[in-house]
């Protein structure tokens, strides 16, 4: 996927998240792109590690301000104490229209993830994202073991919360991936 296609995916995702009720803060975008890559295998060139609020991509972090600089997205400043959110600009909309093939190719996958992520809050996304990351990275079937590992890595997530998140992720993977897809579900972490 080239840089322009990647920009199309991010803009389309931002647009779809907004339509699904998301706050569209940077954390929401980070987690949504992670889900898009990990579950729907959209080949964005952003590597994720476990960092702030769960899976986090430094590549994506560096990518967003450049999209803002090029006028494709903008930052919306919200009243104190809330922080900024992101929105697609008119130029971003125009850019999408120049790329109908890429939009068509990824539209359904983007919409699926936006529906899943859109209504969720940061703390919930942190738990689910971390659960997905651990589930795909570690070869551990036992739910409680995975939950304990999450609690070890992110001590502010209790074992009970982690267990619930792991179960939710297992349900998500089982319902939306075929067996073959599931066997190959993997994420690049380095």
């Amino acid at each position, binding site marked *: 996927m080239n840089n322009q296609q990647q920009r199309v995916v991010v803009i389309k995702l931002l647009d779809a998240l907004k339509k699904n009720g998301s706050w569209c803060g940077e954390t929401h975008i980070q987690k949504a792109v992670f889900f898009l890559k990990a579950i729907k295998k959209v080949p964005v060139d952003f590597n994720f590690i476990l960092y702030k609020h769960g899976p986090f991509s430094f590549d994506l972090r560096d990518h967003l301000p450049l999209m803002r600089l090029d006028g494709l997205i903008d930052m919306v400043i919200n009243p104190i104490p809330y*922080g*900024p959110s992101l929105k697609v600009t008119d130029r971003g909309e125009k850019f999408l229209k120049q790329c109908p093939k890429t939009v068509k190719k990824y539209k359904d996958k983007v919409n699926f993830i936006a529906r899943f992520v859109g209504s969720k809050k940061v*703390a919930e996304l942190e738990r689910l994202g971390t659960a997905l990351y651990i589930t795909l990275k570690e070869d551990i079937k036992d739910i409680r073991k995975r939950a304990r590992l999450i609690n070890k890595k992110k001590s502010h997530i209790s074992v009970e919360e982690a267990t619930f998140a792991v179960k939710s992720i297992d349900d998500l993977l089982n319902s939306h991936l075929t067996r073959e897809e599931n066997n190959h579900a993997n994420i690049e972490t380095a």
Partner: protein
Amino acid sequence: MKNIHEIRDPIHVFIKYDSDERRVINSRPLQRLRHIHQLALTFLLYPGATHRRFEHSLGVMELSDRIFQILTHDDNLKDQTKKQFPELSQKDYWRRVLRMAALCHDIGHLPFSHAAEKELLPEGWTHEKLTRDIILSQEMKEIWEDVTPPLRAIDIAKLAIGPDKAPDLDFTNWETVLSEIIVGDAFGADRIDYLLRDSHHLGVAYGKFDHYRLIDTMRILPASKLGEDDESEEQFLGIKKGGLQSAEALSLARYFMYSQVYLHSVRRIYDIHLRDFLTEWLDNGKFSTDIERHLSITDSEVTSSLRKAAKYSSKIGHEFANRIMNRKHFKVLYERNPADYDINTEAASLIKKSAEEKFGKNRIRLDSYAQKSGFINFPVLQRDGIFASGVSMSSILAQLPAVAIDYLFVDSDIIKEAKKWLHKNKRDIIKPYGEEE
């Protein structure tokens, strides 16, 4: 015997260190940094830019320690923070690890620092990976093991390079916070020191800001109201409201230093000519990642070869050495601008392609670079005890753009001709983005 030593420094006046740290300072990897310029060939534009990575490393140790002392002072810790970080019970151990990591954070740098590292190291290698390997080397392990209590080399390595550059290592939340003290985006000691030190040596005022006030107001805070709609209890580096103007000043300093110094077009073209020279001069066009060989090569060896190669046309790398030593660098033909980027954000690449077809690849260089680290945001503790997003509280932080460059350089012999050509053809070259099949 004296256990505390001190050294004079133009930025921090006196930097103190103990005898264990002196062993590290006297080690080969640290002493090598006396011969690595902090800002590569920038001294060709700003003659004062002859300072080295060595004194910067001492400065980062000093600042990291000051930040650590403020963050972990009992009066500044909330119960929630103490609960989340049981490592606070081993404060002395982690302070020593942090100081050593700060001291060593740059020991993997290649000659002339950042210049073209990506092209000049084998695939998958970075200076941070070299830093890590040196910290974990037998030579350095002997020092870590002699400290009382012994320090774990891997702890030092993690803090020195941070999770971004060590994706294969697991970081605890505590290690993440400590690495932020050194290499963090918002107010890491590395950033504070290089801005202050570079501006001091270059003679530009842009990089100065009130770092005393900033450090004094730093706290470990929950990122709970980092701008979004619910709370996570994860904790990060933040500041008290009283430090917000200092944080703004740091961000502005960084913006100005990038715009005026780090991304100056002449500085950038010298880096490119140096890369071109090194590609010819090095075995297989790459620096070695073997630690012994890494430690044996500094700016001094490269400079000596550059001077010889510039003088004798038979020497390898003569053309680019001559351009550097005799100031015959390429000139800017084109740089990014909003009007062209409104049509196509790949405008510079399109012009490069056409220019290469017209004038030949050897006479064209494209330099694209964007300031890293995204939107700078951090939690701010207000007087009423409520946390807020730094970006919401500061319109300066909210509006500050990233600095990005696209410079297209051409051989100075053809600059006039190339400018005429571009003026005539630009409209035909920059077309709206179209999807490839």
